[in-house]
C-alpha cells in the first residue's frame, strides 16, 4: 500500500497490510506533528501534495527496497491537509523475516520520502505561517 490520504491514518491497518506468514518482524515508523519548530510554538500544520507524482514516487521507494533487501512487504501512507499537534502525518511499515533488514529498509523509506516525494508542510504559529522549504533534518 502506497498512498496519500486526507483521512486520519490508522497504524494497525498499515501494519496489517504488510504482515505475511514468512515475516518475523514488522518495523513501523510513525511521524507526528511536533509542537515546535526552530524555537517557535507550532499551532498546527497543513500539507500540500502533488498527489499523482507522490504516489508514484512512494511506489518507487517500495521497488528500491525490494531490489536492495528483497523485501516486498512495505507500506507507506502519508496524510495531507490540516493536522493538529500529536496527530500522525506519516506511517511506514516494513515486514521481513528478520528485524535487521526491516529496520534498515524502514529507515531508508523515510529518508527517501523526504528527498523524493513531492509533499510540502506549512507551519502555523501564533504570529504567522511559513512553508517549510529547507534541507530535511538528517
Amino acid at each position: 500500500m502506497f498512498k496519500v490520504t486526507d483521512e486520519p491514518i490508522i497504524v494497525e491497518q498499515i501494519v496489517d497490510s504488510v504482515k505475511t506468514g514468512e515475516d518475523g518482524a514488522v518495523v513501523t515508523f510513525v511521524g507526528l506533528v511536533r509542537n515546535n519548530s526552530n524555537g517557535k510554538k507550532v499551532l498546527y500544520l497543513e500539507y500540500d501534495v502533488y498527489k499523482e507524482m507522490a504516489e508514484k514516487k512512494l511506489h518507487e521507494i517500495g521497488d528500491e527496497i525490494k531490489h536492495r533487501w528483497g523485501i516486498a512487504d512495505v507500506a507507506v501512507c502519508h496524510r495531507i491537509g490540516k493536522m493538529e499537534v500529536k496527530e500522525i502525518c506519516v506511517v511506514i511499515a516494513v515486514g521481513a523475516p528478520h528485524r535487521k533488514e526491516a529496520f534498515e529498509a524502514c529507515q531508508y523509506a523515510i529518508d527517501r520520502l523526504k528527498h523524493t516525494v513531492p509533499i510540502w508542510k506549512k507551519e502555523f504559529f501564533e504570529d504567522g505561517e511559513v512553508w517549510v522549504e529547507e534541507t530535511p533534518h538528517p
Partner: protein
Amino acid sequence: MKVTAKFFASYRELLGNSEVEVDVEERATVAHLVKKINQLYSVLPSTPVMIAVNAEYVEVDFRLSDGDEVAFLPPLSGG
C-alpha cells in the same frame, strides 16, 4: 504548442493559482518555459530547484512536447 504548468505550496500561493496553460514555441525546453512564466507572472526563482514533466523529475534542458504537464516544486518538506 501548449503545456500545462502546475504550481505547489509557496509557488501556488505566490501565483494565486494551481495551474496555468502556457503557449511555448516548438522544441522549447523547461528553461524556456521558466523564462516565459517569469515574464508573465514573476513567481519562480530564476533557477527553480525541482521540476517534473508528466510526474517525473527532469533537468532544465529537457525538451517539452505539446500537452506536457510541467510541475514546479519548491524544496520538499514531507514526512
